């Protein structure tokens, strides 16, 4: 069976992109101009403005003269670009092969189209009409009312979609666009009765065709190709190829990694966090809708701010687990901005997300079910937004003797279980042993070793004190006999030590050397006391508990 190509078409991208970013403008008479000022050319009109009698071509002043309530906005290339890619996201949510059509020119300049491979999708959507309706509905959910057509080639699918544009104005706001399915193998029959103008012939060729009495595509198809080429040139042959179904190759598959971006220009400079967060909320909402449409989550957020004076502030915000929760992403962005406020007023903002698949829920026969991965991802993101970056994760024992050292790794219990259950092959065991030897050798090279390791191999549980609490110690013969601190106080009843812990001797900033004592004071507290010879200071750095 021949391949099938679908075309997802938005006829008036400038006003659709504007309404997508400003939903409050929906249903209002709206004109999008090429620039500012009354003489600016109007590029696109909303259906409501057309119903009120505004006609293209016209200037902003002329449009206002026709409709006093008309809202005039300058076109935003950033919004249009984001809307164009959102259209591609809607297509990629239904088919793995989709690509943006090159921008059209002339009268079709306001058009945005995406071609996608519609072959074999009836199993998912029931029929090609069902697929087209689902695609149209998904585009509408992203704020993009679009026409969908399915045919045997790109050109025919696009023409089939354009055929519905005259009825576009009568479409009630908020309703999904119309769909058209050309019968498989019936592309030529479908085109034959249509006007020749739908094939977008160059002006000279269109004039020649009119002169020869060729008004419909069928008239062109009846002529012999060689004679047509001799009389009307290569453009006519190209037109004939389009009518005969050229362009049947499917679009290339989408790359596995996805980077989605939304951006906007601000009407005025912003110097406070609150209005900026309001802007970011809108951007993140649109970004999250696109991610959700494709079944992805935001794994890393990139926040871009265009500063007054031409500077640019770009910061990356880590997300604990892929998430599409706008509240969480906004909170993370707010934390990042609060921690490091921008250096100047902000004139434009953008958010970009690295899309990663949301975690699937794979149950295990032999292990208790943990939190559902999607819910866990959302919880991790919420916790990180609540507590701040670097404060949520799985604890890791650091290869150092520095007291209180710790590290956090991403919390992924399912992945760790899979690693733990991987068969320990001989090669794996050998490489593990080698890596341990190498790690040990590296530690020795760097001097990160216990200079006087405790003579015992036992580890009583400690509660770390971060930072260590200063202590007043009365010592006799170098051993503490009385202790006063916020956590332990009184006579030292029992004492052991000292053991020297030292390391990082090569770095002035990181060097440490302590004499540790285990003491039990008369108030019943067992504490780990340390003396820093360089500062001549006593501290309690842990409690045995």
């Amino acid at each position, binding site marked *: 069976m021949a391949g099938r190509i679908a075309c997802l078409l938005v006829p008036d991208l400038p006003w659709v992109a504007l309404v997508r970013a400003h939903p409050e403008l929906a249903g209002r008479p709206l004109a999008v101009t090429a620039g500012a000022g009354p003489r600016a050319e109007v590029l696109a009109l909303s259906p409501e403005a057309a119903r009120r009698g505004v006609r293209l071509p016209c200037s902003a002043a002329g449009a206002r003269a026709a409709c006093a309530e008309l809202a005039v906005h300058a076109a935003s290339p950033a919004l249009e670009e984001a809307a164009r890619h959102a259209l591609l996201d809607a297509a990629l949510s239904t088919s793995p092969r989709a690509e943006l059509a090159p921008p059209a020119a002339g009268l079709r300049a306001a058009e945005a189209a995406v071609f996608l491979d519609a072959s074999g999708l009836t199993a998912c959507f029931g029929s090609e009409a069902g697929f087209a309706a689902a695609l149209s509905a998904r585009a509408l959910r992203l704020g993009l009312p679009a026409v969908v057509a399915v045919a045997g080639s790109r050109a025919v699918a696009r023409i089939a979609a354009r055929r519905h544009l005259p009825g576009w104005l009568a479409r009630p706001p908020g309703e999904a666009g119309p769909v058209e399915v050309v019968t498989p193998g019936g592309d030529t029959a479908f085109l034959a009765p249509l006007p020749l103008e739908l094939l977008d012939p160059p002006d000279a060729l269109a004039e020649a065709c009119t002169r020869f009495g060729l008004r419909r595509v069928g008239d062109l198809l009846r002529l012999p190709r060689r004679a047509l080429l001799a009389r009307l040139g290569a453009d006519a042959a190209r037109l004939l190829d389009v009518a005969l179904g050229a362009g049947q190759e499917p679009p290339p598959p989408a790359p596995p990694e996805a980077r989605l971006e939304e951006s906007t220009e601000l009407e005025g400079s912003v110097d406070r966090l609150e209005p900026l967060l309001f802007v970011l909320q809108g951007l993140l909402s649109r970004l999250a809708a696109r991610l959700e449409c494709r079944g992805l989550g935001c794994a890393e957020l990139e926040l871009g701010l265009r500063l007054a004076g031409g500077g640019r502030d770009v910061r990356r915000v880590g997300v604990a687990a892929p998430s599409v929760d706008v509240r969480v992403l906004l909170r993370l962005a707010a934390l990042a901005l609060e921690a490091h406020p921008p250096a100047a007023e902000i004139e434009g903002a953008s958010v970009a997300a690295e899309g990663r698949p949301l975690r699937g829920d794979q149950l295990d026969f032999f292990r208790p079910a943990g939190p559902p991965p999607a819910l866990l991802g959302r919880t991790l993101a919420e916790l990180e937004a609540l507590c701040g970056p670097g404060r949520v994760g799985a604890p890791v024992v650091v290869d150092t003797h520095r007291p209180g050292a710790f590290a956090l790794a991403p919390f992924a219990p399912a992945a760790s279980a899979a690693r733990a259950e991987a068969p320990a092959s001989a090669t794996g065991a050998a490489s593990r042993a080698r890596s341990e030897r190498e790690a040990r050798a590296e530690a020795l090279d760097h001097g990160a070793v216990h200079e006087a390791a405790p003579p015992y191999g*036992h*580890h009583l549980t400690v509660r*770390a004190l971060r930072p260590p609490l200063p202590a007043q110690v009365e010592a006799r013969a170098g*051993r503490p006999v009385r202790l006063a601190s*916020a*956590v332990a106080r009184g006579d030292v009843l*029992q004492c052991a030590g000292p053991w020297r812990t030292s390391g990082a001797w090569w770095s002035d900033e990181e060097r440490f050397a302590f004499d540790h004592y285990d003491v039990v004071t008369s108030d019943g507290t067992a504490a780990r006391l340390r003396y820093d010879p360089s500062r001549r200071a006593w501290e309690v750095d842990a409690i*045995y508990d």
Partner: protein
Amino acid sequence: MAPPPSAPLAEREPRLAAALRDLGARVRRGAPPETAAPRCPTGLDAVDRLLGGGFPRGGLSEIAGPPSSGRTSLVLALLAAATARGEVAALVDAADAFDPPSAAAAGVALPRLLWVRPPGLGEALRSASHLLAARGFAVVVLDLAASGARAAAPRARESRARGGDAAGASPESLGSRTWLRLRQATAGTDTALVVVADARLAEGSADLALDLAPASARFEGPAGPSDAPGAEGAFLAALESELRLVRDRRGGALRCTGARWPQRGAA
């Protein structure tokens, strides 16, 4: 004249007897079958015996005690047992006192433990709520023990007497509504919520409350310098704690109310 109570049911309640006969095997007489409340064991025999199997799932438990009373060791034993079963656990560490090497030595599978380090008490409580809502965590430990806070219990009572419920700067300022909310969030889940503090905070809202007290410390090894006062030995080998079960809402009659629990160092 009414039939005597010792008469057969068919004589005393003929309609009920007829209905039971019609329903046949679908109806049984007697109280509903007792199902043991699921518990989360600690793996420590003495403690599990005391608790009737462990900390209750779907309930709020409290561990209260002063520093060096073994609260952290008990929590790590609970986390180690849960992670050894392949379950995941979470620790909301408001005191920022968690020591990963201690946990690893106690047998906690660190990759299965989610460590949350909230910057304040309010964030700690909200973190616990988020974790309970996520479901699937076997244990959520809310560590509110502030080392050094000695006389927390009287202050907590004073605060509650004033009707305080705001997430203030200290755990003692939390009122009963906070704990009721947490208990409600735990109910119906498979999660055992364990609050660790210097003194009991949840009081009546807790399903289980355990008081810990330090008993003794044992030093082992060669003796220290003879001229040093208090030099008992070379290293601190073990701490012993006393446990007292002060509340067990689900356990019925208390099996025993106290135990001694030696915490030995892990080799």
